[in-house]
């Protein structure tokens, strides 16, 4: 904890501890439904942290993050349900598989820049998606998906939700600590240099490609961790975990929270992943039900509201929520580049 607070510096130890205590107390205050929403927020916060490591740290724009997320989820389902492996080793194998695939695909794609990197990673992810959907490799159970098995009762979401929530929250904290360590390490500084100017970084003797593959592998492992937790929370892994929509969620969480900021993905995940249940809640209120049908549809439609928000963010808040808040307070949570 001390290393983390030192690395963070700004938000204040008291604020962080306070937020953590409140987050940990969620199962005592809210219904099981909202606890499952909380699990979802933690899972996607981890995915966002992973994506932010790429986009915000080393400046890689990927459209293939779903591959690293879904692969670990499928590995867990496959190994527990078909090979009879117990959960923990299956999870470890899943995370390693995601990191390994990230290293391999990163090796191929890291020569490409900007949108070309995005297109190549999208290509690899789509191969995974189609393989899973058609069950061509006999690995995925096709469109029906693959149920996970051998989940201990304690973290079985159908039995109780609080333990899985704490597991997800604890994992998120560990992942944030890891990222804080990376930020403060020499690797983190090298990645900043690559993001700001890869030509100059190369001229200074940094092996740009190697650093990109390293960052992509770490991001792959973290996306795998999110994928394993996601598999636990939905119990049946479907091809959707490999679809572009997962990558888009990671991207939006990162951008809305604030690209390159430490807390951005957490804020972004809280915002993006609670919007749908909150809009459902809103649709049930008397105020909204009193509106005319098209208007009711308009104020409760997630695509309409999120789509409008993305546009407004790009136009007016490109630094995201955390970036804008930092500027308002006149203190920068993001170290000067």
């Amino acid at each position, binding site marked *: 904890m001390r290393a983390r607070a030192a690395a963070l510096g700004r938000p204040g130890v008291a604020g962080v501890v306070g937020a953590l205590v409140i987050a940990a107390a969620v199962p005592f205050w809210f219904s099981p439904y909202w606890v499952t929403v909380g699990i979802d927020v933690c899972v996607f916060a981890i995915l966002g942290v992973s994506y932010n490591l790429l*986009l915000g740290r080393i400046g890689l*724009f990927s459209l293939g993050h779903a591959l690293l997320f879904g692969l670990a989820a499928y590995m867990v389902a496959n190994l527990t349900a078909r090979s009879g492996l117990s959960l923990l080793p299956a999870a470890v194998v899943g995370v390693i598989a995601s990191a390994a695939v990230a290293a391999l695909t990163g090796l*191929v794609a890291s*020569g*490409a820049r*900007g*949108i*070309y990197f*995005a*297109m*190549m990673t*999208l*290509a*690899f992810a*789509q*191969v995974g*998606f*189609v393989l899973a*959907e*058609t069950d*061509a490799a006999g690995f995925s159970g096709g469109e029906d998906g693959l149920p996970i098995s051998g989940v201990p009762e304690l973290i079985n979401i159908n039995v109780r939700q609080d333990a899985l929530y704490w597991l997800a929250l604890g994992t998120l904290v560990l992942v944030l600590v890891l990222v804080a360590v990376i930020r403060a390490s020499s690797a983190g500084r090298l990645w900043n240099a690559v993001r700001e100017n890869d030509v100059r970084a190369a001229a200074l003797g940094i092996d740009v490609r190697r650093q990109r593959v390293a960052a992509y592998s770490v991001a792959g492992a973290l996306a795998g961790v999110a994928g394993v937790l996601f598999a636990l929370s939905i119990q049946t892994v479907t091809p959707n975990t490999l679809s*572009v*929509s997962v990558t*888009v969620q990671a*991207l*939006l969480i990162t*951008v809305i929270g604030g690209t390159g900021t430490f807390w951005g993905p957490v804020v972004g995940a809280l915002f993006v992943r609670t919007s749908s249940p909150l809009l459902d809640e809103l649709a049930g209120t008397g105020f909204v039900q009193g509106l005319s049908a*098209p208007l009711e*549809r308009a104020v409760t*439609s997630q*695509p*309409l509201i*999120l*789509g*409008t*928000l*993305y*546009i407004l*963010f*790009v*136009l007016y808040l*490109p630094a995201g929520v955390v970036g804008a808040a930092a500027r308002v307070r006149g203190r920068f949570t993001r170290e000067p580049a």
Partner: protein
Amino acid sequence: MDGGTAVTLFLNGLALGAILFLLASGLTLIFGLLDFVNFAHGAFFLVGAYVFTAIAAGGGSIFLGFAVAIAGGAAGGLLLERVLLRRAYGNELHQFLLTLGLGLIITEVVRVIAGPNFKSVGELEFFGGNVSILGGSVQEYRLFLIAVGVAVFAGMLYVLRRTRIGLIVRAGVENPGMVEALGTNVKRGFSIMFAVGAALALLAGAAAVPPSGGADPSLGEEQIVLAFVIAVVGGLGSYLGSALAAVSVGLLSSYASFYWEPGSSMVPVLLMAVVLLVRPQGLIPQARARV
């Protein structure tokens, strides 16, 4: 497989290639010339499909459907470029986010207006029959699609290489500051190219309706990935490449699905994976193709 079946599959593959070309060429033109990543391209396709379905199901001629799709796409593309998308030139991430948000909004509006379910276009009077060629049998409409694909390909190539607007846009891509300094309005050229790309997307959506029998709100999301796949296989931004890639994917899908049902959905991504590993710059790289 006998000769007649081979001919049938070949023509069906070419017709599919024509639709894919219309779809991918708009994306490729906008990317190749304006360096703009349009993730709303699939939503444009969707609008084209619904416009066509509404007109054809209401008893209008299919040519009216095509004309309205093209005109609507051009007008909509022009308007969007002017008020919104122009602000994101030079920033790929912003382009992606803006057009992603736009795509979500357009798709949702279509879903609200037309409903969440498949909308059938009904029986079409024109080109409904079959033609026998070399022992094979193919729908008249598919032959018409092939003709449209060839016509659009040749027409766009002519515009880009032989007309003033093509010259301005090509020069504007090389050096916008210099072209402006010489007194030519580059921005207007870019707006027009954007309108052309959007019109092609709606045309592709309209053209794809008769073979599938109607339109579905999820079309846009399916098509945008396919469009990017073809653009990557051909070489991002390469107009000639997108044509070659679209025809290759069309033909391979057609033959593959004869032997193996899921083959048609595997072909595009497998081809893309092979191309990326062996020839990551695409079949015809933009630098070589010049257009």
